[in-house]
């Protein structure tokens, strides 16, 4: 088992009292797997990812990567945020190179690595361009290349296409799927987009909100290649309806509860 989350619990102290963001989270990601967690806002999915990255510390429970307990952020868990987090003063190739530089990898090795990953994300001819001159989709490709360049055990994606327009998003989904097949990287991604999750992943954890818990786990078995047309496949639509229903049911329920409480 590659990434393992056991009995994870996270609460925050707020002015209104204690907020339980995550409760009894148990999940795993196998080596080479592509797993998504879907949930509405407030389901604590971002918190979950931050705990995996080591950017937050759990209230109880633990995260293990390749058997080692996560105590803080490290290069074994690559991260891509929703917002573009490129270093604005570095060009594309310097951005991709930066993680290697931080770890003191010699220049020759770095150059080799950078040109490989720029090739993988198809940005070789943009190597000398500054981030502000790139489109949103290209920025995310650079961010992915930068995360991959340090060769992490697992890639953690925090709604990486959430800020992109619909057309770019589709292209990027196809790109990510292709990249995953090509590099055999283990990927854990969170999203609120159900179709995106089904399209990309082998397994989906559906999360419910307040407190964030894992509601159900889906194994996605889709016949044939995953191309854009697979979205019209009845199997795909069955998954989508079921997951959407699950999310909507919870959402309605909590809406009614809140309304009842406020009256």
């Amino acid at each position, binding site marked *: 088992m590659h990434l393992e989350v056991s009995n994870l619990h996270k609460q925050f102290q707020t002015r209104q009292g204690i907020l339980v963001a995550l409760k009894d989270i148990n999940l795993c990601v196998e080596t080479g797997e592509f797993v998504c967690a879907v949930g509405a806002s407030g389901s604590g999915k971002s918190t979950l990812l931050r705990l995996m*990255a*080591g*950017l937050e510390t759990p209230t109880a429970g633990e995260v293990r990567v390749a058997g080692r307990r996560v105590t*803080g*952020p*490290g*290069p074994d*868990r*690559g*991260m891509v*945020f929703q*917002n573009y*987090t490129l*270093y*604005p*003063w570095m060009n594309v190739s310097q951005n991709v190179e*930066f*993680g290697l530089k*931080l*770890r003191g990898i010699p220049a020759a090795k770095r150059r080799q690595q950078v040109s490989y990953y720029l090739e993988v994300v198809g940005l070789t001819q943009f190597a000398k361009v*500054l981030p*502000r001159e790139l489109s949103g989709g290209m920025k995310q490709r650079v961010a992915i290349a*930068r*995360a991959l360049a*340090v060769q992490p055990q697992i890639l*953690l994606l925090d709604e990486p296409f959430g800020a992109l327009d619909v057309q770019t998003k589709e292209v990027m989904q196809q790109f990510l799927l292709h990249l995953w097949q090509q590099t055999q990287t283990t990927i854990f991604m969170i999203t609120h987009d159900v179709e995106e999750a089904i399209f990309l992943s082998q397994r989906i954890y559906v999360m419910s909100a307040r407190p964030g818990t894992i509601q159900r786990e889906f194994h996605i078995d889709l016949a044939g290649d995953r191309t854009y047309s697979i979205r019209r496949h009845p199997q795909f639509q069955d998954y989508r309806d079921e997951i959407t229903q699950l999310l909507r049911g919870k959402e309605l329920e909590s809406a009614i509860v809140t309304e009842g409480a406020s009256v």
Partner: protein
Amino acid sequence: MQPVRMMNPVQAIDERSSRAERTLPPTVFWRISEAIPQPLTWGLATVSIVLPLIVWVMITATKSVDPLFLPTPVQVIAALQRLSADGSLTKDIGFSLFRVLSGFFCAALISIPLGILMGAFASIRSLTEPLIAIVRYMPAPAFIPLLILYFGLGELPKVLLIFIGTLFFNTLMVMDAVKFVPKELIEMTYTLGGQRLQVLLQVITPYVLPNVIDAGRVNMAASWNLVVVAELVAATEGLGRRISVAQRFLKTDEIFAGLIVIGLIGLTIDLLFRLFQRVACSWARD
């Protein structure tokens, strides 16, 4: 009945807007937060320099003010030539520049790292901010008597005055700039394997560099104010000294000459800062 009633306010707004035309009238000069045409920019910039000059010439030409108090532009230029001919202007500029630059440089040397540390670490901030917040409200010129008592009348008290006057504001401005470094950029660096020192030196510092240069520009202007203050009180040379001596002998033309030189040097330094910012932080240009 109720739904119909709820629509009434909407209708009322409709009627009001059709009665009074509320479209934004077009304008070039008064567009908020927008650029104006290039020729207009240059035209207005010229007016801002030439208009005061014309007013000056007119007042002196009509002799409506005693020439003793307001020299003509020609007299001021003559004074400038006189002062530069005997070498005293160059010497004064040299002394004032030396004081400003050394005081400012020492202040920058401490305030930039300190500001970055304060911005990055809440612990350092708690440790230093209360003291700085108090001291920065003490006017730097108020330190002159103490500085003279401690260090006499040499160069040290003057340089120190500029140092004190620049240090605290610059520190706080750098600190504020660090607060605007996106948290995600720092976290990203951690997940790439970066250590805290690396984040400080290789992420935060380059990110705030444009703002640090800006802060330097602002505080350099303050340094120029202070050097004149210091020289007015106690000095044997320097532009401020020149002005105060000129006052004693009623040489208003030399006072004007000194003021203009100070203004021009300040402008030059300001432009150099902007040039430096352009070259060093071309990525931040909008």
